């Protein structure tokens, strides 16, 4: 009796003082009943005010109305994707039940980290438990978020990269506006024709411009059907080094350096917004950007807009493809099972064809559910934005393999930064492309090692 009292006292003491693990991990398979209804689901996302946030809130409202009294979802904006991840890490570290959300939207490059954090419940657990069919979801998109056939998070807002161009400028330069360049060499040739100078020798229009955005390098690597990091692009086991200093990638960086150095491309730095503004202002005639920029471009450019497949560096068109970018939804496991199940209900809701069609037509993100493309509202939208066809065709033309699944790396966000610094150094002529990328790879190596050490030690 005394021992029981002591045990109870110890448990109460531990609970009261909040020491140790106060966050219990639960399996979604148990049938715990919620103490009260509706079950509250907190949803963190990185959509600032605008169409994306409005669409998110509309879907949340629709879900809450359909599940009145049962489940209530509260969506809050947490800052940029980086900020959301930083806050999530801090919340995991603080280890207090109230600080973690039930569901969180994390960008694609945070995937490996989220898996290794062991703070999430893989989607596969719910899929198996519910016998949910993923047959209707785009396999090329699921591919990114699956390892060994197991889906860890649910892709939600997906974008792919495209080549945008100024059809009017093409016509003026004697190029066929319906035949955008497909390879980097073709872009170079077109850019030379598109660059215009005024009387005093100042360039009034550059042929090409793109933000120094690491994502573009990753995409070009996938288009060449090459891996960005080793160990099967990080999917056989944790990658131990990056490959962005391989010959093909150096060739790409060299191409970019020459474009800027020879005055046919404008360097607007690493900020994608700056490059978008410059393109809209007509500073250059060709631009690399994601499908997310399509509606913004269409509504603000004063020239006739064109969009084609994202270019490839190689001549062979039959291999490789584009990697789906964007973000996915993660269910945290430090929550009671009924809360996790409620979050899963919301996730399923978002992936339904009708809601996916709504999501697509209101944001421009790629519909994850194939059936959404058959929705009449969706088809009408594609009629209105026919340039989006290029994105659909590009995704369907992609052959899913390790290269096009995309690199999974625990320190992928930092790696993308390192790649950008490498490209920047090459363009700014601070180092040759080979040296710049070698240095960048060497710079990120300690972080990769530290990450893998930390993961192995757990």
């Amino acid at each position, binding site marked *: 009796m005394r021992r029981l009292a002591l045990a109870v006292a110890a448990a109460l003491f531990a609970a009261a003082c909040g020491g140790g693990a106060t966050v219990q991990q639960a399996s979604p398979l148990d049938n715990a009943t919620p103490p009260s209804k509706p079950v509250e689901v907190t949803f963190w996302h990185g959509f*600032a005010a*605008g169409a994306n946030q409005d669409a998110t809130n509309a879907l949340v409202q629709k879900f809450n109305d359909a599940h009145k009294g049962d489940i209530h979802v509260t969506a809050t904006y947490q800052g940029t994707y980086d900020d959301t991840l930083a*806050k999530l890490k*801090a919340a995991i570290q603080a280890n207090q039940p109230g600080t973690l959300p039930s569901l969180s939207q994390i960008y694609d490059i945070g995937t490996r980290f989220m898996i290794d954090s062991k703070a999430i419940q893989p989607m596969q657990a719910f899929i198996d438990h519910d016998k949910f069919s993923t047959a209707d979801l785009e396999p090329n998109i699921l591919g990114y978020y699956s390892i060994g056939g197991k889906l860890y998070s649910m892709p939600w807002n997906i974008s792919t990269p495209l080549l945008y161009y100024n059809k009017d400028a093409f016509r003026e330069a004697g190029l066929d506006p319906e035949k955008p360049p497909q390879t980097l060499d073709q872009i170079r040739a077109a850019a030379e024709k598109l660059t215009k100078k005024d009387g005093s020798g100042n360039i009034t229009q550059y042929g090409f411009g793109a933000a120094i955005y690491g994502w573009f390098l990753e995409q070009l690597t996938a288009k060449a059907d090459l891996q960005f990091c080793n160990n099967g692009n990080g999917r056989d086991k944790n990658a131990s080094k990056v490959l962005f200093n391989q010959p093909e990638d150096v060739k790409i960086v060299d191409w970019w350096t020459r474009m800027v150095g020879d005055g046919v491309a404008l360097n607007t730095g690493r900020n994608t917004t700056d490059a978008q*503004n410059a393109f809209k*202002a007509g500073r250059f005639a060709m631009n690399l950007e994601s499908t997310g920029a399509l509606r913004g471009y269409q509504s*603000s450019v004063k020239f006739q807009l064109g969009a084609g497949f994202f270019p490839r560096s190689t001549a062979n068109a039959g291999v490789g493809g584009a990697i789906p970018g964007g973000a996915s939804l993660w269910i945290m496991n430090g929550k009671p099972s009924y809360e996790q199940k409620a979050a899963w209900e919301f996730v399923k809701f978002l992936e339904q064809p009708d809601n996916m069609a709504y999501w697509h037509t209101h944001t421009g993100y790629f519909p994850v559910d194939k059936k959404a493309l058959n929705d009449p509202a969706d088809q009408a939208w594609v009629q209105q934005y026919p340039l989006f066809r290029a994105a659909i065709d590009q995704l369907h033309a992609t052959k899913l393999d390790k290269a096009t699944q995309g690199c999974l790396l625990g320190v992928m966000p930092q790696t993308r930064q390192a790649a950008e610094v490498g490209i920047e150094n090459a363009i700014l002529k601070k180092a040759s492309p080979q040296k710049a990328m070698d240095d960048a790879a060497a710079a990120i190596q300690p972080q990769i090692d530290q990450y893998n050490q930390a993961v192995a030690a757990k």
Partner: protein
Amino acid sequence: MSRSIRRGLSYLVLAAVTFVLLFPLLYAISGSLMSAQELSRYPPALIPSSPRLSSFADVLKAIPLARQYLNSAVVSIVVMLGQLVTATSAAYAFGFLRFPLRNLAFAVFLATMMIPWEAVIIPNYLFMAGNGLLNTYPALILPFLATGFGTFLLRQFFLTFPRDLFEAALVDGCGHLRFLWTILVPLSRPALASLGIYAFLQTWNQYFWPLLVTKTSTMQTLQIGISSLRDTEAATAPNFILAGVVLALIPALFLIYVGQRHIVRGLTSGALRG
């Protein structure tokens, strides 16, 4: 050079310099009234051809501006009052009282000015999280109630106070608190106003800490709201962002233009005077 030419030249130089100094504000106001098209031209326009207030409306739709104004105001006012109380009492001790280790204690206060906030932000965050204070006013207020800078400022000011007046008051039986409240504070109004305005603005302008500890848009402060405009899709239209900037500036500008005389007077009488 004749008097009037010299005066004319003074006006000219002053006007030119003031214009350069004011340019960011002028451009922000001008840009907030322009359309997105005008701002994406190159070279960009400087004067709106047909001014419109639509950007302001868009900003008001994008963020709960009124609520965020309120949050910023509450936090800034409470911190300002708190700093006035703590700085005045501490500066009084350093300026008038004798006690062992006084110089060391003052050095400690000065040292707090040198500790970069980035160095203590994580332990502070964990403290708030561990005590359930995330997304509350206390989290935004508590860490800033004491101020090394304010104590420094007021101490310099108090040091110029005539010692004989102080001793006379004490001899007359005036206790420290009474002396502080009835004599010192009224005479120090300019310095206190200056510190108050500075404290208010510092808090009003904070960015990273509120971002880290607030979770919902109804709890966020104005700076977070304004900076979040940069991350919106409409951010490619600078007029939208500039409208937010103008809205955020209005109270600060008001304070500066109205309170500037107080600040000057406060800085004149005592502290930095010989």
